[in-house]
Each structure stands twice: as structure tokens, then as C-alpha cells.
């Protein structure tokens, strides 16, 4: 019997080595260790043993059982491990295939740039004010120190709806509307984005375009403050290395007035194609709010000062994205829009 148990063990060990899958292993386990298995079969004959032999054989049988159980679970773990490894191997996918398509639309570059400009000024404590696109002559011109028959009206050829109502030629009327609304509180600190209209139509002018106006009114506001705000804007918009330059100019609603140039973002001021060799690019018009305009807005011109500026969003967008023809902006070709 002892011999039987020993050979059982040897046989089981040998067979087990051949097993390659969990199913066969299970069958084998049932065959040797099951209720009707080989080991049980051998032990059923224990009755024929002498009382001295019984515990000895019994102990041996338990040893064999334990050993086989150990071997079986070892083998099982090994096979499970292998099966998992096999599955992982089979489950390999081509990770270079494109992912699931999410239909994503694109914002218009003018809209993106407008938002960016707004964010910069919001960050500097400006509010956003809006005004009507169809304006009265009063707000568009007269309140801005541009009386009827003033030659400065030539600077902005207008579309008229009636003698007194026109499509606003700039966002500057929002200056007056804002002051009227906020008076007497200080400071006034707003930007006013929006569509404007002028009677121009060629490669560099569109009859409709977009501007952002800025207005700050408070006690003690100076031209140096205007320079400071615009320098900050230029650096946020076009990079921390940018410088600005003010050139004297004329607008009826500011005095002193200045055109503002920013050092060329492409060449850094060395001179290139974009800046036409000058190192500077004109980006906006600005100035100290004219005392007449402050008065029209309700403020006391002797107590407060202010500055204002206005920029074309198209120009900023074209510089920022390197768009070389303004007409793309209103053509809305999908192949253009997709690039932003």
C-alpha cells in the first residue's frame, strides 16, 4: 500500500507536468483527489491493514494528499497566470488608430481675438459696455466734439439711415453713453467692443468691421497712465518683449491724441516685411478725453481727466494669426474657419 501511494504520487506528478490548461488540471485533480478518485480508492483498502500500519499509512496518505494539493494549486496558479498573459497578448490593439470623433466646431478668429482682448482688460479691472450699432448723429458725432459740417467727418464716411440716424462709424459713442449711465460715479473704466460701419470697400477696408473702445475717467488720470495700460495690453497680446510708441495724431474727441505703434512681433524691431522695415506696427488710436467730451458725458472737466483708445479687432487678429487679406474674415470659408 505504501508502494501504491508512492507510485500514485509519482504518477500524478508526472501527468501534471504535461497538463497545459485549467480544465485538464481540474479533471486530473478529480481523478486523483476527488471523492471517487485514486487516492480515496487506495485508502478504502485501509481496513485490511494491521493496526500498527494504519497510522503510518494514514500519515503517508495525508502527506501525499497535501503534496498533491500543493502541486495542484501551484499548477493552477501557474496556468491562470499564463491564461491571463495569453489573453493580454490576444487583446493587443493598434493604439495608433484615430480615436472616437467628437464633432468640434471652431470659433471665428475675430471672436477669439475679441474674447482675448476682453480677458486682458477684465484682468485690469475694466468692465464691458455695449451700445447700439445704429446710432444717432448726436452720440456718433456731436457729443464726440464733431459738429455738423466739421471736416473731421470726412475721416469716417458714414452710412445714413436718416439725416439724424446712422450706422455707428466707431465704438466711441459708447464712451458718452457709458459716462451718462455711470455719472457721477468714479472711476469709469470700460471697454466697448462691437461692430462698426464705414463707407469703404477695398482690399484693406471692409464696410463693416469690429472695434474695441476703451475709456478710463477718474481724478488724476494722465497720458502716462494711458501709456502704462496700453503697454500692458501690448505685452499680454503680443508678448512680454513688446514696446510701444506713441505718435501725435488727431481725433476730435481726444486731446492730446496719439497713434500707438507696437514693436514688431515678427522681427522684434529689426525691420521686416510685416512692419515694412520700420520695426513698428500701428495698432490703435488713443488720447486724453477731450474736455468737451467729458462735459457731454456729464463730468466736470476741471475735476476729472480721462483717456480713451480704440483698436480694430481685424487688425489685431490679422497680426496675431498672420492673415494677409482682410476679406478672408468675412468670407467664412470653412477651410479658413477650421484653422482657428
Amino acid at each position, binding site marked *: 500500500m505504501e508502494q501504491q501511494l508512492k507510485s500514485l504520487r509519482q504518477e500524478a506528478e508526472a501527468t501534471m507536468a504535461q497538463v497545459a490548461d485549467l480544465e485538464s488540471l481540474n479533471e486530473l485533480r478529480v481523478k486523483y483527489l476527488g471523492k471517487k478518485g485514486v487516492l480515496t480508492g487506495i485508502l478504502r483498502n485501509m481496513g485490511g491493514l494491521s493496526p500498527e500500519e494504519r497510522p503510518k499509512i494514514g500519515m503517508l496518505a495525508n502527506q501525499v494528499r497535501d503534496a498533491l494539493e500543493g502541486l495542484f494549486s501551484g499548477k493552477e496558479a501557474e496556468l491562470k497566470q499564463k491564461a491571463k498573459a495569453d489573453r493580454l497578448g490576444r487583446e493587443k490593439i493598434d493604439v495608433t488608430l484615430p480615436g472616437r470623433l467628437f464633432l468640434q*466646431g471652431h*470659433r471665428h478668429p*475675430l471672436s477669439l481675438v475679441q474674447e482675448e482682448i476682453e480677458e486682458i482688460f477684465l484682468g485690469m479691472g475694466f468692465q464691458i459696455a455695449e451700445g447700439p450699432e445704429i446710432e444717432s448723429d448726436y452720440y456718433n458725432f456731436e457729443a464726440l466734439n464733431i459738429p455738423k459740417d466739421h471736416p473731421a467727418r470726412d*475721416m469716417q464716411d458714414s452710412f445714413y*439711415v436718416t439725416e439724424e*440716424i446712422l450706422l455707428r462709424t466707431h465704438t466711441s459713442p459708447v464712451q458718452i453713453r457709458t459716462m451718462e449711465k455711470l455719472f457721477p460715479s468714479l472711476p469709469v473704466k470700460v471697454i466697448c467692443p462691437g461692430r462698426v460701419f464705414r463707407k469703404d470697400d477695398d482690399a484693406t477696408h471692409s464696410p463693416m468691421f469690429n472695434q474695441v473702445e476703451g475709456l478710463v475717467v477718474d481724478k488724476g488720470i494722465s497720458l502716462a497712465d494711458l*501709456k502704462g495700460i496700453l503697454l500692458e495690453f501690448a505685452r499680454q497680446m503680443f508678448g512680454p518683449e513688446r514696446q510701444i510708441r506713441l505718435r501725435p*495724431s488727431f481725433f476730435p474727441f481726444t486731446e*492730446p491724441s496719439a497713434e500707438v505703434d507696437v514693436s514688431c512681433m515678427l522681427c522684434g524691431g529689426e525691420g521686416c516685411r510685416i512692419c515694412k522695415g520700420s520695426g513698428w506696427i500701428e495698432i490703435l488710436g488713443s488720447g486724453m478725453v477731450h474736455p468737451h467730451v467729458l462735459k457731454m458725458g456729464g463730468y466736470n472737466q476741471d475735476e476729472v481727466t480721462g483717456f480713451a483708445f480704440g483698436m480694430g479687432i481685424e487688425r489685431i487678429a490679422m497680426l496675431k494669426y498672420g492673415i494677409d487679406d482682410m476679406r478672408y474674415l*468675412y468670407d467664412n470659408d470653412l477651410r479658413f474657419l477650421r484653422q482657428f
Partner: protein
Amino acid sequence: MRVGYKWLKELVDVNLEPQVLADKMTMAGIAVETVENLAQGLDRVVVGEITAMEKHPNADKLWICQVNTGSEPRQIVTGAQNLKTGDKVPVALDGANLPNGVSIKPAKLRGVSSNGMLCSISELNLDPADWPEESREGILILQPDAPVGQDFAVYLGIDDYVLELELYPNRADCLGMINVAREVAAITGAQLKLPPWADGAEPELPAGEKQVKVSIEDPELCRRYTGMLIEDVRIGDSPAWMKQRLAAAGMRSINNLVDITNYVMLEMGQPLHAFDFDTLGGGEIIVRRANAGEKLVTLDKAERSLDESMLVIADSQVPVGLAGVMGGLDSEVIDKTRTIMLEAAHFAGANIRRTSRSLGLRSEASLRFEKGVNAANLLAVQGRVAELVLQLGAGRPVGPVVDSYPVQVPPVSISLNTARVNEVLGLNLEDAQIESILAPLGFKLEWTEKGRLQVHVLPYRADLNLEVDLIEEVARLHGFDKIGTTLPSGNTTLGKRSEEQKLKLRARHLLANCGFSEVINFSFTGPRALDRLGLPPEHPWRQEIKLMNPLRDELSLMRTSLIPGLLETAARNVSRRNVDLALFELGYVFFPADKEMKSLPEEAYKLAGLAMGVIPKAWNHPQTEMDFYFVKGALENLFGELGADNCSFAAAEDIPFMHPGRTAAVMVRGKKAGFVGEIHPDVQESYELPGKAYIFELDGSQLFEASGARAEFAPIPRFPAVTRDMALLVDAEIPVEKVYRSIRRAGGNLLREVRLFDIYQGAQVPAGKKSVAFSLVYQSGEKTLTDEEISALHNKIKKTLDQEFGAELRQ
């Protein structure tokens, strides 16, 4: 204004490179647009004399010329056939780069060396009109007295630069050389060298035989009128120097008298007009408003109908000129004119501008009067004219100059608070510095007290009236670059979008995230845009606001909807083979507030979109057609994310340009706020779209008013949810939303969620019926629901549906 540099240097002692001066002027507020080298391309072109000619031994049509160009003689081969020995010609020497792009290098022509080139008019880019006809072919042959070896540009008198000024409307004073010189002196500190006539008094002239009588009837429109008679007029040619200066300024020489008036206008900025005195009825000038119905034939031979708003120069009977704009034909100076009445006057700019606009007639004179001329200087102008007339022998100016100056404008004197200068500019200038910055302007300066400078402005600077005008002078003459950068130091302000601004921006982001790309269309549209939609005349969108002066017909109306713009954009994209589109636009549309357009129009913010074509197939998903539900889904997503409560969709059959069975009105808080649906096939055809298009337009203010619902936390249920499906057959006509609402109502608050997961019509389903299948999720916040409870509720819902729709349960 074109400023010849040599001319300028006669008036002010400036010695800068032209470009350097131009930059200084630009940075001081007199913008120089361009600096033009008149001799561009004429470098190393000189006057040469042909001393000998012989035929080229190897070429029939070539000549070998020996040319004296001042230094050693040089041999030049030419193909021209119009030359002879002794001719003076322009010679391009080695190294010349001619205006036509040709560079001159020593060369051999058929074996004969040639050192330079003899030039024609076109090679030198000269204006043929300036040269006699016989010079226009072949090599340009110069006058026999042309000095050999002289620079050709010097010979022509064009060795000069022209600074083209881009003057702002407030600096019309710089439309005259004298004032440009003053400005250059102020900017550069250079010494002025003005001739005595620049500020001359009334000229002393011998008395003439005739007298002109001047009266001003409307002193508001004519502040001052001076008239000088010139007798024994001799019309002739002007001298070369005057022609050259006129040419450099962009004016053509006409005759000596016209040239004098133009020349003095360039010098002193004052437009002048010459009348044939003998044509003036009564020998009289009356400055008055035109009578209604009066007519005048102007110098351009057009008959003008005048009205009372226009100022005319009249004789005792009729208008003889349109004041400040253009003279009359009948009083024009012609060859047989014997006596001239020369007008130098001041007319009110605004009135000139209005007249010139309403007649569509602009002239050098009207442009200057519009911007303002200097009334104080008119006698000096007459004196200068008299001097030139005598100098050129063009006639005999006689005195006295008639001067009518009814209302004298008092001289301007401004008190400047220096503390204010520093406050506005952000500078720290001492009083003495401010004085020295302003001094070069030539104004009398007086300190009335410490910090108070009285500035006596000279009358040619009509733009200086207020303290702030002087602050600007300080800023530009001191230099904007010397002003530092600071940030406003007042109270801190909160930079923040309003709720509506946030919603507008959020809507842009959301629509883009749903696959729509943003477009920006013009706010104007044309009369045919709505015809293409087939809109009846009474449709509200037809109340478009018309522009009085549109650019073109297609841009003559203000849009009342974003839809036509989107459809046009779609059609344009389709024509370029972009056929799969999802587009949106946010913007204003316009409606008249009242019929007479007395008040500003109503501006309504709209959100609109369009989708057509397909979402293309990919390896992991099939091609999907754009359809109604794509667009509706985007809107549902928009409403959800904007927190717009109470938005729904209801079938709408009455929108003329939409498919009657595939369009929904969008209801916001129970009111129509727009629509979504498929465009009518007629519209698809009229825009030549290749397939169905789905569009929407929503009213922004209605949507935004309903938006912004604040999210509110509800406890997450601790008890399990159970999902049961329910499939039922209902009449095909019944809108699913109705069924859905019934389920909701019957399910009460234990029914957490209802999701439609299938809808089917076809072979398996009886005709006229459809199968709809929902997943119903049951859950209680208080306990685990038992099977029995759920079944009871589920059955209750079934029963309700059966009662309400005769819904038959599918197994």
C-alpha cells in the same frame, strides 16, 4: 500737401537728411506719409555732347558715338537713329540704375566696347507731355545750351525731395509752405528765414483807372473779402523755377497768372480766385447767399442750381462764382482779359463744405476753405501776388486793395496752468521748461503768475483755442517718448462680465463644442435676400431699415434675420465644395422702432445656425447624415448648459421657408422664441444647396432671460434604482413628448428617469401605429422599493397610457 525740400530750405535753415526730418515731423504730429526722391533713378545720369559718330562696322543699325560728359570722352554704342554730332543728350554712366530698372555696366556690342547709354524719355521715366513732340521718339535731345557734364536731375531742376504730408484736419495751416517752415523751425529748432511778405501789410500800389466795389451781405459766411485789380494783364508762360515748384507740388502750369495764384496758395495756404473784371456787372462784387432758383455755369462748364444755403460771389445782377468752391465760366480769365479782379477772402468752412458736398463739387480751394484759412493775412497775400505779378511782368497791380472786414475776430490768448500740463501728461516739467518747449512756436509768452503762462496765439494757428490745445503742443514738441508709463492709481475696480455677457460668450463656446463653426456675416443685406426665402411682403422680416447711401444694392438694407446670411454663406461654401457644414452666428438684427424712424431702431440679439451634409464616416463609426435631431440636440444641450429652464419644442407648420412637417417652434417660458427645422425644398433650390439643410434662429433676450438657473444640490439616493423597460404601440400621429409627459405624470416622484431608447414604424408594426420604447428608472429616497411596489407603479403607468392613448403594450 507736397513739400519740396529745396523750397522749404529757403524758408527755414534746416539741414537734416530728408528722411530724418520726416521722422522728426511725424513724431511731432505732422505726419510725413512718404519722402519722394524726385531724381530717383537719375543718379549718374549727366548731360553729354556727341562729339563724333560713326557706323558700327558689324551692325547696320548701330552707331558708335564719342560722347563728352565733362571728364574724359567716352565711347557709347546706340541703336537710335535720331542723333547727329553736336547733339546734347542725357547719358547714363556706369553704375546708373535707371527708373525703368536697367543697370548700366561697361559692355561690348558686336565687338565694340560701350561705356554708358544714351537715354530716351521712357528710359528716364519722364512725362512726355513736358517735352516737345520731336523728342518723344528716340534719344531725348536737349537744348543746345545744356551744360555738358551737369547732373541731369540738376539740369531738370528735380534734384530734390518731396515730403508728402498727411495733415490732420486741425492742421490746415500746414497747407502753406510758410507755415510748414514755421512748424519745422518749432520741431527742429532751426532758424526761420521768412521773407518780409510772409506777414506783410497792405501793399503800396499806384492808383489804377478802375475801382471795384465790394460788399458783404452775410458776414457770418464771409468774414473778410479783399479784392485787388490788375490792369494791363499779359497772359503768358511762367518761368521754369515756378513750373518746377508747381510740378513738385503736383500742379500743372497753366499760364503766368493762374500759376501765380496757385503758387501763392502753396506759399501761404490761401486760395485765390481771378475774375475778368470787365465782365462784372456794375464793376461790383456782392458776397451774398444765392436766391432760390438761381443758376450758375461753373468753370467746369456745368450748370449748377443754387439755393439759399449757398454763398455766391455776385456782381450787381447775377452770381459770378460759387464762393470758395469754383468760379463762374462767364467771368473766367481768358487770353483777351485786360483787367483782373483778384479775390482773397475768408469763407466759413462748414458752409463751403455743405455746398461742395451738396453739389458734388470739390476743388483745391474748397478743401482749404473747409479746413479753415487765416483771415488775418489776406492783405499780405495780395501783396505777395502783386510782387509776383510785377516780377513776372504779368500785369500792373493797382491800388488801393479793397478790404471788407466787417467782423474782426479778436486774437486768441490762452492762460496755461503748468500744473495742469503735468497732471494731464504725467510729467514733472518746471515752468521754465514749459516756456522753452513752447517758445519755438513764435508766440508771445507772458507769466501772469507763478505757474500761469499767458500764450498769445498767432492767428495762423486756428486750432489753438483751449488750454488743452496748448497741453497737446507741449506733449508733441517735448516728445511723447519722454512721457513715462504708470498705471491708474484710483480705486480698485472689479473687472467682470455682466450675466448677459457671460451667457453670450458661453453660447458661443457651447455651439462650437456641439460641432458648429462660427461665422461673421455683414449686418447689411440686399432686397433680394428675402425673396430667395420666398417671404410674402407682409412678413415681419420685410420691415428692413434702408440705408440712404448704400455701397451697393446688395448691401442696402439692415438685416432682420441671421438666416439669409447663413444660407448665403452655406451656398458660397458649397460652390467651393465645402458641403458638410455646421455653422452658427450670434449677432444683432434691426427693426424700425417707428415708421418715421424718429427714434433709434430696435436691435435684437439672435443666435442662429445651419447644418447640412454629413458627419463623415470613420473606421469606428458610420457616416451620419445631418438631420433635424442633430440641430435640436445641439439646442437642447445649449439650453441645458445655459441653465435655461422651461424650453420646449412644438410643431410649427406656418413658417413659409421651412418644411411644414419638419419644423418646430422653440418655446421659452411658453412663448415662441425662434424655430428649428429643415428648410423648404424651394429654399434649398433657390440657394442651390445640394441637400437638405437644417437651420435654427433664437431670440437672445428671451433665451438669456430664462437662462442662468442656479444649480441646486439634491442628496444622492442611498437606495438602489431599478430599471424597467416599457414598449408600446401608439398611433403614429401622437407626438412622443405627449406620451413622455403622461409617463412622467403617472410615475410621480418615484420615477426618477424616463429615457426613450427606441422608436419604430414598419413591417413589425400595424399600419398607422408606431412602437415606442422607454427605459424607466424607479427609485425612492427613503427606502429600497420592493418588486411589488415597482410593478404596481409600472402597471399604473401602463394603465394611464392605455386610457390616454389606447396604447397597446408590446411584449
